[in-house]
């Protein structure tokens, strides 16, 4: 079922071949496409797949937070996902958004989650079946489960984490990490007041964990990145963050399921919260020259 049996939890990763073989078992599995581009699903998708959009489905439109347990249950029920359904996520950008959607499912206590290695691109490149029609499934019954707070970090927790000198992985680009880039072109009002990173964080841009074809790199290469180079040690309590918590959920997946770290938290407030917060210290390595 998995590609690299040496991963800590190879059972969480399935191949495109596995999905092709099992996709018709819609009573057992629900394939979910989660993309950055809100229209991509409509251009064609795995025939059995439903779409879950990170902005329109998973985020609360008013509170800066995810939808609550009741609305999460509604969303699942609508797509025919019951508490027992195994959800198989895939998406664009090397599964960036698929990992994010999976993180929100795990946060809501949905345990049975898989990722299709290589994501949408690999499926399309292999010329596997694509359909434009949205499949309809009978509504399921979904009972809100207990939340799983262990995978989410809030700012105060990150502050204590930082003071305790515990490891943090900043998954943004080197320019964002150094503080060279503080806001995006033409959008100063949506940027961050200060550039830099949380003191003590190590910079490992998220995409370094994926190979050219969009699949996750083999375990030895991941160990080189996160252990040899970023200095994580087995058993570490780790916080991952980015700008708004989506790229870092990809790294959360890699650290948790591929490398076997048992205490990884995604700090979804990330730099847009920390960089703007009163009293939050930063480190800036960029020197304007």
């Amino acid at each position, binding site marked *: 079922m998995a590609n690299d049996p040496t991963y800590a939890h190879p059972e969480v990763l399935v191949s495109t071949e596995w999905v092709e073989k099992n996709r018709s078992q819609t009573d057992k599995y629900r394939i979910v496409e989660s993309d950055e*581009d*809100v229209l991509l699903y*409509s*251009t064609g998708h795995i025939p059995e797949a439903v779409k879950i959009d990170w*902005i329109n489905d998973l985020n609360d439109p008013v509170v800066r937070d995810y939808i609550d347990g009741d609305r999460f249950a509604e969303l699942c029920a609508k797509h025919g996902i019951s508490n027992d359904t195994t959800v198989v996520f895939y998406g*664009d950008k090397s599964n960036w958004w698929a990992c994010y959607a999976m993180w929100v499912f795990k946060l809501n206590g949905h345990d049975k989650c898989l990722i299709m290695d290589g994501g949408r691109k690999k499926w399309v490149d292999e010329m596997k079946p694509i359909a434009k029609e949205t499949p309809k499934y009978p509504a399921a019954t979904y009972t809100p489960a207990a939340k799983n707070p262990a995978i989410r970090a809030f700012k105060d927790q990150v502050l204590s984490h930082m003071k305790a000198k515990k490891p943090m992985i900043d998954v943004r680009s080197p320019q964002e990490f150094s503080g060279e880039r503080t806001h995006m*072109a*033409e*959008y100063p009002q949506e940027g961050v007041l200060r550039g830099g990173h949380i003191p003590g964080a190590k910079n490992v841009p998220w995409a370094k964990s994926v190979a050219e074809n969009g699949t996750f790199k083999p375990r030895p290469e991941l160990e080189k990145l996160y252990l040899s180079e970023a200095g994580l040690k087995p058993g570490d309590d780790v916080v991952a963050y980015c700008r708004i918590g989506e790229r870092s959920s990809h790294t959360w997946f890699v650290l948790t399921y591929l490398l076997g770290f048992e205490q990884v938290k995604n700090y979804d407030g990330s730099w847009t919260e920390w960089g703007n917060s009163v009293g939050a210290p930063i480190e800036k390595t960029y020197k304007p020259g």
Partner: protein
Amino acid sequence: MDMSSTLAEIIETFQSVDADTRLDLLLDYANNLPALPEKYRDEAVRDLGRIHECMTPVFLFMEKDAGNLRIYAEVAQEAPTVRGFVSILVSAFDGQPCQDAATAPADLLKLLGLDGQIRMNRAVGLSAILGRVKKAAA
């Protein structure tokens, strides 16, 4: 509002429908983006028109032809949202007086009612595209 009638019509159409239909409309535009003319297809030439603010490859060329603007573009199939937006600009401004594009509202995405559904990083790229078109037409 002072804007070209073609653009005003497009905006009116987008504003008259619900959010899901708006996305369908955008997808129609994405599917109808004309191909880049031969003379811009050579890779070295094409790269001169790259919009670097966009995360996905977007190539944009503008020409002025007797006071009218010509716009040619290529956008990856994997980025239908960007393709759709670019295609709207082409529909609204290609072959029209430069003045139309030059005076286009900077908050076009919002006027089309798409700002709520398109994530910020993407919006930055779209705003850069519009900025490039306006500048070329000015």
